[in-house]
């Protein structure tokens, strides 16, 4: 890695960390912070009620990106949504069915679910087999086949897929659509987003995935992080416009 890249990376990291702490310090009452309405998160909150009313399970999958790989932040975003549902589902006694496409995610999801049961004081009811490994990260279509099978057999009310997927998501979402499940979908992969669009309007697109804790938990750290994300976006947009202007005018 050349010196310029290292220096640029360090500047971005230090600038981001500085802005994050600045926003965190300036944060007032989290309840006063207005967030842009996102249909996906609004619908997410309704799914627990639907599961309780119908007595059916929610199906949640945080995708198939390893926690030890480059897809780690996406999988962590998926796990944070899983954590929210696990907490709510444990309180309402409607345990979710969780499928994963990676071994480390299976362990992470089991830990999340166990934490939720423990937090609800019901650790005796925790069943690790509610988390179901389907296939390794390298076999996307086997993962899709496994998840589709779970959707068919497990008395599901809603299909929630938030994490890293590829085009194999089409097989799962199409099957869920045929079974008339409500679906909330999100991915950081443009290919997966393309196949998700036809089946639902409740889609979390790219960066919206990483805003999950801010929308679901509203803690100051999460809101400050979202503010950082927005500020960085404005800076990048300004950079793109300036670069385009420079090349158009100066050549």
């Amino acid at each position: 890695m050349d010196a310029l890249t290292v220096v640029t990376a360090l500047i971005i990291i230090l600038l981001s960390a500085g802005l994050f702490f600045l926003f965190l310090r300036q944060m007032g009452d989290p309840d006063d912070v207005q967030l842009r309405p996102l249909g996906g998160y609004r619908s997410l909150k309704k799914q627990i009620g639907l599961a309780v009313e119908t007595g059916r399970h929610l199906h949640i999958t945080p995708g198939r990106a390893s926690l030890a790989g480059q897809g780690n932040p996406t999988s962590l975003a998926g796990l944070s949504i899983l954590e929210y549902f696990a907490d709510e589902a444990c309180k309402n006694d409607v345990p979710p069915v969780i499928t994963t496409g990676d071994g480390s995610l299976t362990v992470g999801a089991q830990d999340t679910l166990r934490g939720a049961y423990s937090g609800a004081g019901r650790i005796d009811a925790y069943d690790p087999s509610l988390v179901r490994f389907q296939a390794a990260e390298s076999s996307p279509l086997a993962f899709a086949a496994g998840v589709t099978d779970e959707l068919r057999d497990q008395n599901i009310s809603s299909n929630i897929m938030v994490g890293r997927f590829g085009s194999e998501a089409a097989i799962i979402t199409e099957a869920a659509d045929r079974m008339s499940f409500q679906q909330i979908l999100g991915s950081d992969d443009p290919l997966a987003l393309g196949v998700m669009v036809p089946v639902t309007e409740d889609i979390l697109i790219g960066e919206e995935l990483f805003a999950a804790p801010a929308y679901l938990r509203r803690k100051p750290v999460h809101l400050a992080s979202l503010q950082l994300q927005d500020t960085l976006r404005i800076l990048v947009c300004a950079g793109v416009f300036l670069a385009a202007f420079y090349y158009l005018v100066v050549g």
Partner: protein
Amino acid sequence: MALAIAFGLVTLLGLLLVPEVGATLTGWASLLAAVALLLGILNLLTIHSRRVLQGNFYSLVLLFGMAAVIALGITDGLGLTGNGVQTIFELVQAPLEAAMASLLAFFLIFSGYRMLQRKRSWWSLLFVVTVIIMFLARTPLPEVLSNLFTKVGDIVSEVVINPGIRGILIGVSLGIIAVSIRILTGSERPYDK
């Protein structure tokens, strides 16, 4: 928490300044991921063993397939069979995955059709029309039509799709930076439920 932050910072600085240190630490993470994969396989084995007892035929097929591949892996290792795992992959898994992948186009078309039935909006129509144009652009047609659709497909791809994808990927990168800062500063602790 302090340990996690320290390892995160050392890995980050290692990747930037001393690549050998960063590579060693990410190598450890890969080793843990391999162990986690074994746990995942045990999870799969446990769940499908239960289903076999409940009379699920497909779970029996899955367990049989798993046992066969593991047995072939062992006999390959002992030199009793030659490339057994590779052969079974080429003869069974690769064609099955190719068949499923080839169905993706039909899934998309049917999904688009159902979207139009469910909600007739300009956006739905635009989606379906774009899908049809992109399919036609990559389908062998008479030369005049082929040239036309290829040209339109290329314009859609270059002017609309690629910039859109870049925009999404830039947003994802910014999200990743935000999550990483939360974890590196210990503001978020996914390892401490």
